């Protein structure tokens, strides 16, 4: 006789099995100890009973043993030892990263601010902590909020370095996934916001967390409202302007760690930026924040070897440069007042230093913008005629020479798309394979180009260095075909190659045309502030200090326009260089305890 067995759907209404306390888990947990309850989960046993009743089917003895073996292999036998290291055989984190992970797990109990200086691998520390929690089964549901431009980079890093199945959120239903990476802006917008507030997250990671410094912002309140067990906030600059920013960050993580708001101001703040009772503050901070510094040692970066390559323009190129400079001077006085169009004039001068192709396109655009009867048209046309007379590019030829000499992978950076196109063609004519890389490419194409560069091409010609990180540690030559005026962008360029994981010294070549504004810029960046050899990340601080009022690029452009001759320009740029130096020294002093 067959006894009909209830399907899982209706077991809730008609439980036929005789009962020992509870079904698959106890409704009333048992006490093991005054503080400790025990829950029992026995669904596998209920499965056994069901199969006995139905007389089968039975599983395989080998699989039964393998299941146990798997369980033994992944068993968390110890409260403390880091298990994730054994599971990442292909990847060796640096000692300070492992220490940080340990400290967050065991001392900070999973709520921490990771505030390493730039370039020390905060992402890796967060990855280790996440991995360890996942292995231990303490974390399942994870939300990772990062700037939009870093979403894919995070996903890839977690996938490839840590074997963590993270996905980038694109559609609403994707929030259901266990490990989701999304941008803060997306997450805090409805309907996403409402959906997320309903979840309970085992772990939330926020990258670039200094954006949470103001507690009145939507970002701050959103993170504050989310339900979370563990929480990691990542930032290289925990304090930018004001100590209260730090207070807010910590309160988000652990309210009361620094006392109430009034207590904090009274106990620890002397002035907006100057703390008092420093040792006490440090102690309180040390319980929630870890800041590794490059100066702590332990992290060895390879050397940067910088070579300036001075060049003399051919007479035809020089004639064009003079022509354009004349045009810019005259025109600038005419447009006095309209800063934006003045700045675009300076661009013309910079472009001549790069390639005739670059300046040609800009001139044509200028030509199109002028009215038909404008007297400017004739002037512009004269310049275009000058371009025609140029047959060779001095810089490109020098670059070719360098590339052939080094006979190794090299990345060439230029500011201008037209120069990039020209160089691609130029290299092709000389039988050197080069691939382009630029900001406008979609992710897939970028990846493809990187791949081609890694495997096939000797040369990559890039117009973009920042944004989504391209990591090219396998390459150790950089040629700056022309230089951006913003030192941060120069740093980003070099940072693609010279970063953690680079095993060789990095050779950097700056092409510099004599007798042009380029010479001044190279002088400023290289000789004056010696930026190419600054410690990674140091530049951040200097520029941030300096750019409070006006961006460096704009300052430079103004100087170019306002100077009557080369000598005066040189003096003013020197003046700017001195300011930068002073800022650098000031920061050095501040950082010394």
């Amino acid at each position, binding site marked *: 006789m067959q006894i009909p067995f209830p399907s899982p759907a209706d077991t809730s209404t008609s439980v036929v099995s005789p009962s020992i306390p509870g079904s698959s888990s106890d409704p009333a947990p048992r006490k093991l100890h005054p503080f400790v309850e025990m829950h029992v989960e026995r669904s596998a046993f209920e499965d*056994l009973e069901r199969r006995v009743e139905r007389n089968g089917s039975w599983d395989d003895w080998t699989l039964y043993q393998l299941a146990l073996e798997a369980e033994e292999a992944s068993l968390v036998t110890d409260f403390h030892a880091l298990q994730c290291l054994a599971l990442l055989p292909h990847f060796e984190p640096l000692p300070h990263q492992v220490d940080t992970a340990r400290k967050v797990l065991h001392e900070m109990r999973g709520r921490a601010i990771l505030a390493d200086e730039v370039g020390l691998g905060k992402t890796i520390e967060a990855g280790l902590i996440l991995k360890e929690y996942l292995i231990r089964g303490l974390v399942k549901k994870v939300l990772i909020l990062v700037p939009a431009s870093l979403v894919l980079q995070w996903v890839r890093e977690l996938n490839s370095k840590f074997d963590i199945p993270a996905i980038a959120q694109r559609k609403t239903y994707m929030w259901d996934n266990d490990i989701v990476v999304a941008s803060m802006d997306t997450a805090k917008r409805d309907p996403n916001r409402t959906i997320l507030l309903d979840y309970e997250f085992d772990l939330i990671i926020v990258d670039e967390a200094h954006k949470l410094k103001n507690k009145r912002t939507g970002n701050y309140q959103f993170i504050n409202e989310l339900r979370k067990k563990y929480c990691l906030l990542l930032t290289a600059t925990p304090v930018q302007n004001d100590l209260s920013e730090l207070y807010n960050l910590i309160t988000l993580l652990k309210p*009361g760690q620094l006392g109430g708001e009034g207590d904090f101001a009274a106990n620890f703040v002397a002035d907006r930026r100057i703390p008092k009772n420093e040792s006490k503050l440090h102690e309180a901070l040390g319980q929630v924040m870890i800041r590794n510094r490059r100066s702590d040692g332990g992290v060895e970066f390879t050397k940067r070897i910088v070579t300036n390559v001075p060049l003399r323009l051919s007479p035809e190129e020089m004639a064009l440069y003079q022509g354009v400079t004349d045009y810019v001077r005259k025109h600038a006085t005419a447009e006095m007042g309209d800063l934006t169009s003045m700045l675009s004039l300076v661009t013309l001068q910079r472009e001549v230093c790069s390639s005739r192709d670059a300046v040609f396109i800009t001139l044509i655009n200028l030509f199109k913008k002028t009215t038909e009867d404008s007297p400017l048209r004739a002037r512009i046309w004269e310049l275009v005629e000058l371009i025609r007379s140029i047959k060779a590019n001095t810089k490109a030829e020098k670059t070719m020479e360098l590339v052939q000499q080094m006979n190794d992978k090299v990345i060439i950076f230029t500011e201008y798309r037209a120069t990039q196109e020209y160089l691609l063609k130029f290299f092709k004519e000389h039988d050197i394979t080069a691939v382009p890389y630029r900001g406008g490419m979609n992710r897939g194409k970028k990846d493809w180009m990187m791949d081609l560069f890694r495997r096939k091409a000797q040369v990559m010609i890039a117009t973009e260095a920042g944004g989504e990180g391209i990591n090219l540690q396998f390459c150790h030559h950089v040629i700056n075909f022309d230089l951006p005026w913003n030192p941060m962008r120069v740093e980003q360029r070099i940072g693609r190659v010279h970063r953690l994981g680079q095993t060789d010294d990095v050779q950097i070549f700056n092409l510099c045309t004599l007798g042009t504004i380029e010479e001044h810029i190279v002088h400023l960046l290289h000789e004056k502030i010696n930026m190419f050899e600054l410690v990674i990340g140091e530049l951040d601080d200097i520029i941030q200090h300096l750019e409070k009022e006006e961006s460096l690029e704009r300052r430079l452009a103004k100087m170019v326009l306002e100077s009557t001759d080369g000598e005066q320009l040189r003096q003013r740029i020197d003046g700017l260089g001195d300011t930068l130096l002073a800022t650098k020294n000031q920061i050095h002093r501040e950082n010394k305890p």
Partner: protein
Amino acid sequence: MNTKQVHKFVTSYLDSMGCHFIEKSPSSVTVKLSPDADRALTNRPYYWSFVDRTGAEPETMTYRWSFENPSMADRAAASPISYVMTESGRIVQEDVYFGSRRLLQLFEASHQGGRCVTLFEEPLRGRSDPLGSQPYTAWLGVNFKVSYECDMKREELYGWGISLATGFIDEKFMETLKLKRLTPRLPSNVHILRNGISLRKGMSQLELTLERKLKNVDFTWAVEAEQRRQDELERIRLYYQPMLEAMTHEDQKAQKEEQTARYLQREAEIDWQYRPRVSMSVMNCGIFHLPGIH
């Protein structure tokens, strides 16, 4: 798990699922999956529902699994999925190492496929009396996983068994089982003793005995976790209470409610994070018929 253990695990799994090995070496295997293994591993529910509905001849996947630890440089250079085309079809190449997702999936699959068994020990050949009948006792064998959890976690395994004839509990049951030759079929010339206790009773006996044992372990970890929980609760109390008490004005009512909600939420989070707890779960279990009377 080292490379060798991973190799052994993977090949035993594939073997027991009836997969066909095309190549087998210490550093890698190439294998054409059996339909069962394909269903368990390839994540192709639509394909399999198509096969089930139409009765089409299934085409299973072929993998080449390499057991060497790949270096980070190799991994960065390799695309996430790579495959080679051969005359017999496409072979997907993957690295399988301790920590890789594929091995994790195999762990999970073995867990699903090795949940409940009923087995008999094979009698020693030639020793049995062809006319007599050997008595067998039924045992309930259960593998328990016990986890101790607060803001940290630790786990233990217990492979215990209880004789359903007498209620005798063997704490080394799984270890001894591993040495025996077991078969799913009832051997000849064997009779099974009548059970003295029911399966349910056996199970609750095992649970209670284990519970008694667990009550006697060291609870320092729990006392410390509880202390941390209390400290944390006190910390946020000192933060929120004065703030809430200061909000006496009528205009601050909404604000007060909001802050109260935050306070309760933070309390719940601290509880979730620190409260010490133990869970005992049955990983897999089975009925084992072994010779002798216990």
